[in-house]
């Protein structure tokens, strides 16, 4: 029974969370001896990406590529993945916990009449059964959830399933793109890119987040410079500054924003309200910078600096630039 990894393509590229999807699929496959197969859907430009998947341990790629197909046609994607699940009888179907994956995965689960575990941070096999490990109650508890029938449908969190690149090639099998989803559909009228090619806060390995301590929207420039100096960082925001209109909701980390688990998280000028902690408490390493030594964020952080962020952050940026040469 293959493990089916639903690999997302965005404008012909595979975002970093695709590796976590394959990583999760591989961790199941290693326990069961199954093969990892991927399904990749998109415009005609993704063929190269399909061939590359062999290096990540995928043995077969089901490629549904056609002119004009973009991931944002949920009904169509759902139909392709469901048809493939019915033909291939996978043990599990794994999606990224991205906007696309979190929209598509439950659709597929409902059509297949099976259970769904969202934003998993672990997957285990017990005998023949798949068990999802995932946070509940804003990360206050970790749940182990057992699928009572197959296939198990899961979406997995970015940065949770590291995988090594190796040698290997995948067999690419073309899949026909159906004419429509079968349901009167959703038509995409327009796609508006955000300002700049920002790395998404839920996928970046490093996040630099700011709160009210920044005082003015323009001061977020300090965090953007730090993110740039770090190289692989995204800028995040607390609810307060999103509510104030300083930063877009897409950057909000916290209960009514995104839950992120980067390797390194900077909380700058953020007090550490419980709703914010809910969104980042499982980050690998948390650094807090705040002028208030009693701010709750220091209790959640692994390391902190007390003081004026307007002095500390530029110094940090400068030192990092020097270090990285």
């Amino acid at each position, binding site marked *: 029974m293959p493990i089916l990894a639903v690999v997302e393509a965005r404008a012909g590229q595979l*975002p970093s969370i695709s590796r976590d999807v394959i990583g999760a699929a591989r961790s199941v496959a290693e326990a069961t001896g199954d093969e990892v197969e991927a399904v990749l859907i998109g415009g005609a430009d993704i063929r190269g990406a399909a061939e590359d998947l062999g290096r990540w341990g995928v043995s077969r790629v089901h490629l549904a590529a056609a002119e004009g197909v973009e991931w*944002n046609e*949920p009904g169509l994607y*759902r139909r392709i993945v469901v048809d493939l699940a019915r033909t291939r009888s996978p043990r599990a179907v794994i999606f990224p916990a991205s906007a*696309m994956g979190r*929209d598509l995965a*439950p*659709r597929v*689960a*409902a059509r297949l*009449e*099976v*259970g*769904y*575990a*969202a934003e998993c941070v672990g997957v285990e096999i017990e005998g023949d059964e798949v*068990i999802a490990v995932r946070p*509940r*109650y804003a990360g206050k*508890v*970790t*749940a*182990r959830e*057992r699928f*009572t029938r197959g296939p198990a449908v899961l979406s997995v969190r970015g940065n949770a399933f590291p995988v090594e690149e190796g040698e290997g090639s995948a067999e690419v099998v073309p899949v026909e793109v159906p004419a429509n989803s079968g349901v*009167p*559909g*959703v*038509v*995409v*009228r327009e*796609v*508006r890119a*955000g300002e700049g090619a920002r790395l*998404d806060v839920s996928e970046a390995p*490093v996040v630099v987040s700011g709160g009210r301590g920044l005082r003015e929207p323009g001061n977020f420039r300090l965090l953007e410079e730090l993110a740039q100096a*770090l190289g692989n960082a995204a800028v995040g925001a607390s609810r307060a500054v*999103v509510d104030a209109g300083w930063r877009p*909701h*897409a950057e*909000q980390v916290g209960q*009514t924003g995104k839950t992120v688990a980067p*390797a*390194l998280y900077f909380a700058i000028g953020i007090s550490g309200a*419980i709703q914010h902690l809910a969104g980042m*408490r499982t980050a*690998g*390493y948390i650094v807090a910078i705040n002028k208030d*030594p009693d701010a709750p964020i220091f209790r*959640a952080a*692994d*390391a902190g*600096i*007390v003081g004026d962020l307007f*002095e*500390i952050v*530029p*110094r*940090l940026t400068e030192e990092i630039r020097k270090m*990285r040469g």
Partner: protein
Amino acid sequence: MKIVVCIKRVPDTEARIRVAADGRSVDVTGVKFITNPYDEFALEAALRLREAEGEGEVVALSLGDTGIAETLRAALAMGADSAVHLTTDRPLEGLAAAHAIAAELSGRDFDLALFGLKAIDDDLQAVGVMVAELIDLPAATAVTEFRREGDRIIAEREVEGGMEVVELPTPCILTITKGAYEPRYASLKGIMAAKKKPFEEKAAMAEGDGGIQVESLQPPPERQPGRIVGEGPDAVPELLRILREQGFIA
């Protein structure tokens, strides 16, 4: 326009969540419950649409045990016209909840069904779109704002790297995220009026386990306590030394 808004009652974030003795559920003694914040955005969106159109009906629907009545009364106080309580003897989530709600909606005539993007207790982000698939309706998720144009809904969705504008025919389902719909407070007049609004209670059609069961709940792994490295910009070199040592910065 007939709009159904599906609402969930969830523990307040501030609540201390304790695992119950059975190791697989949560001990709710003393826990304060609230309306799921995302569902409040959905209800607000419904009320504003009804106001913009000058007519229409907003039905608040919820699935659960006796505590739900309070949540539905709050929705009526905010401005919903009627409430439907689908009673269950055990908590339903995911596919099982979707089936119960789909069974109710397929017996109803409506133009729009709204759900919050996700519930803050299970964080599944699934039920709304599962209902759409079960009853074959078009659906859009993570909607920040929408409007009606004739028999179509034009909605803005939040996606990675930006925003998407989509168009769907009615009847359809939307799941609403944080955006234009800051929820209103119920007025005293609204609270009083709520007591007289139609409130229907009926047993949910709940079958099956939804394909997945919680096996165990555990507190998250302990973190080592952190430390304050120093004060002011002079603490930066020490911080960087630590980050380098831990392998976070090359």
